[in-house]
């Protein structure tokens, strides 16, 4: 089952969980599934159906921009990583 690595900045929405296993075949489905388990997280990552401009998403080591965007395929062993720009100092 693929998993999503939730960044520290968004873990208030996952009850502190850093890795969440989901059942999905694309990144888009994975985020939707994550949002079902932890409501509100999709709104932090997506805007008008696209990834927000201060967030990058990776499947393994690959940016989904090189894999078809949110329609990038994911397999059982894939780890999806959400990496946001952060601004704390």
């Amino acid at each position, binding site marked *: 089952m693929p998993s999503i690595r939730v960044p520290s*900045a968004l873990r*208030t929405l996952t009850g502190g969980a850093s890795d969440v296993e989901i059942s999905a075949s694309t990144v888009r489905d994975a985020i939707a599934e994550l949002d079902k388990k932890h409501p509100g997280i999709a709104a932090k990552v997506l805007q008008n159906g696209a990834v*927000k401009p*201060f967030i*990058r998403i990776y499947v393994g080591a690959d940016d989904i921009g090189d894999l078809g965007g949110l329609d990038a395929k994911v397999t059982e062993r894939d780890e999806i990583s959400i990496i*946001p720009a*952060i*601004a*704390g*100092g």
Partner: protein
Amino acid sequence: MTTRAVIVGAGGLGGPIALSLARSAELVIVDHDVVEMSNLHRQLQFTAADLGQPKAVRLAAAVTARGGTARGITAAWTPEAAEELGGDCDLIIDASDDPATKFGVADWAVANGRLYVIAAALRHGGNVFAGVPGVACYRCLFEDPVDAPTCADAGVLGPVVGAIGGVAAGMALGLLAGDRTYAGALLAFDDLRTVPEPRVVRFAPRPDCPACRRAPISPLAAPPVRVAEGP
């Protein structure tokens, strides 16, 4: 030849960065804020004696006390004021807690061909980006600062800023020494309590990046510069 560096932000990240670079470069430290009691647990460069004093000036004094050379400027850094706020620097480091300032610093560095480091800390982790002219820039990676979470949104664990600040200072020293190992890469520390190693994010230049293409970029909405130098 003297190496010059500008540090934007004299707080949790700016403190360890400035103190680490104290003997390696002449520093210009820019921050508009004053020291508050709520800062002291994570901004270890300050003591209760600094309460109410300008952060930039007090941090510059701490650098000077360690044998370094630093000028503290009490002002909000903006691209429009960049020339006045150490525009002749070899390297600029963003250690602020403001998304727009981070992108402004990166864009200014790209436009002026300067080395730059963008540092950020939040909750239990942080990011450090190493910018070098001619490679993919910060705005190639993250397109726009809107809604990027800040400490005000999510908080930060006190020791995290020391760790991320140390990495940022080390990155700056490396860039100044000609080390390009991480040029154009983001080191993402997800949770320093459990995973001390960063994820190294490398990426290609974005063809439509307005910073790399030197196209106009939306100006920062920032207050006018107030300059009060010290110590």
